[in-house]
């Protein structure tokens, strides 16, 4: 039952994320395709690619294939987690710059941000090495009762909370004051997604107490939070492509 929930939600996320990322990379406004990744507006596409990759690598079939290539046991999980953290870092930089929040920029962009992601990646790597994981297991689910695996999982959640935390206030402010109704809705979706992600990191001790069976339910929270953030970002992209701001705040004098 839990496996089915996981497969359904991961498949949904893959279709959702993959579809939007593919659309962004191939849309008429970005005809240069993958080169879009190099531009500031391509950061979202990069985030989509990394996040989709993280989900793809966690699929049991793909995981097994990759495991035969990587030099360490369950190294694929490390790669998937690095992709996910990379996506979070790119999202953090993108939103910190967009919302113009000094606090968020100080924590997420530049040396401090880079140091945080390196520390998190090293933490994930060393906890993987410390754990006893002889056979392939996506998300290390079969070894969830080991302390090193618990730390491994928590580091990813904590890094996500580290990036999203400073963005909470600017996103919340925009969800209240954005003059465009659609913009307020988009920011609200992003805010809900961030709150869910941070809540999961804070509630991690509860997750441990709940046991392995509850893992998939908590994982579902992450999927919902990702979906909310991606939908919010899509809403901003939609508002941009349809020029909703210009249509809503027409400064013309005609009253016809």
């Amino acid at each position, binding site marked *: 039952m839990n496996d089915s929930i996981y497969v359904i939600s991961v498949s949904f996320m893959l279709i959702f994320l993959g579809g939007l990322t593919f659309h962004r990379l191939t849309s008429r406004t970005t005809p240069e395709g993958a080169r879009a990744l190099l531009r500031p507006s391509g950061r979202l596409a990069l985030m989509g690619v990394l996040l989709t990759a993280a989900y793809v690598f966690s699929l049991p079939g793909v995981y097994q294939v990759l495991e035969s290539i990587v030099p360490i046991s369950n190294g694929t999980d490390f790669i998937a987690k690095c992709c996910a953290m990379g996506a979070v870092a790119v999202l953090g930089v993108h939103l910190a710059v967009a919302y113009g929040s000094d606090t968020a920029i100080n924590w997420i962009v530049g040396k401090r941000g880079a140091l945080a992601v390196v520390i998190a990646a090293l933490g994930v790597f060393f906890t993987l090495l410390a754990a006893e994981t002889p056979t392939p297991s996506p998300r290390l689910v079969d070894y969830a009762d080991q302390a090193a695996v618990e730390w491994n999982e928590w580091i990813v959640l904590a890094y996500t909370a580290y990036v999203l935390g400073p963005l909470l206030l600017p996103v919340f402010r925009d969800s209240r004051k*954005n003059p465009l109704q659609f*913009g307020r809705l988009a920011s609200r979706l992003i805010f809900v997604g961030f709150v869910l992600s941070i809540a999961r990191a804070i509630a991690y001790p509860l997750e441990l107490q709940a046991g392995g069976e509850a893992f998939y339910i908590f994982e579902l929270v992450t999927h919902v939070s990702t979906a909310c953030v991606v939908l919010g970002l899509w809403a*901003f992209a939609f508002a941009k492509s349809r020029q909703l*701001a210009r249509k809503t705040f027409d400064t013309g004098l005609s009253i016809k």
Partner: protein
Amino acid sequence: MAVSGSDFKQWLEARGITTSASELGRLTGLHRVTVGNQIRRGNVPESTVVGVARGVGMDPIAALADFKEYKDLDSRPRSPTAAEVLSQVHHADLMVELQHRFHEDLFPRNDKVRIDFPHDGSHRAWIDAIDTGDVRHDVAEKTGTAITYLFNQLSDNKLTPIQAVTAARVSGTSMVAGLVVVGLITMEEGDWPEDIRETALMVMKNEDLVELIQQRLNLLQRRLRQRKEALEYAEKLTDLIG
């Protein structure tokens, strides 16, 4: 705010009007389900009361005065003040009149005021016309509306009938005029002569006309600035994030 469902039912019975939702729908032009929902939820908009009154050939003002919220509705003369009437003239029409006064051959006077009300900013202009001091705060307090929400309503031309009547009540002006201004009842139903706006405009003194235009242009300037700022903010953010 609207009248309660039970009051509405009692009123229908007292006036010998059917309480059947489909019949009320026919009278008001609303769908029977809509009318049924309004009664069931206990929140019947004033427009439904007025619609029913019109449907049975009753004076809408007398109909509204049967409800406790509007019982003093017709207790003052119905006719509006000149300032109230002029508040319902769009600044484009005011400027046409000004041009005419500069050169009547080059700019002949219009027989009729061209732009109907409510027009953009007409609710705010009416509140300004009847304001004797702190009418906005009084209305917010008496109707239980947050003052910032009331400001937004005025900006969006969305003053409700009860707010308009309350504003008139505290300002000592015609309450019926308030309902005409928010568009709940017609000029004819409010006893406004058909050419009341043209007459008020024609007899207006030059200095008053110029002052009124200046006020309106100041408001227009502020509104345009606000729109420009909103546009810049929203566009910048959608460009950066989207």
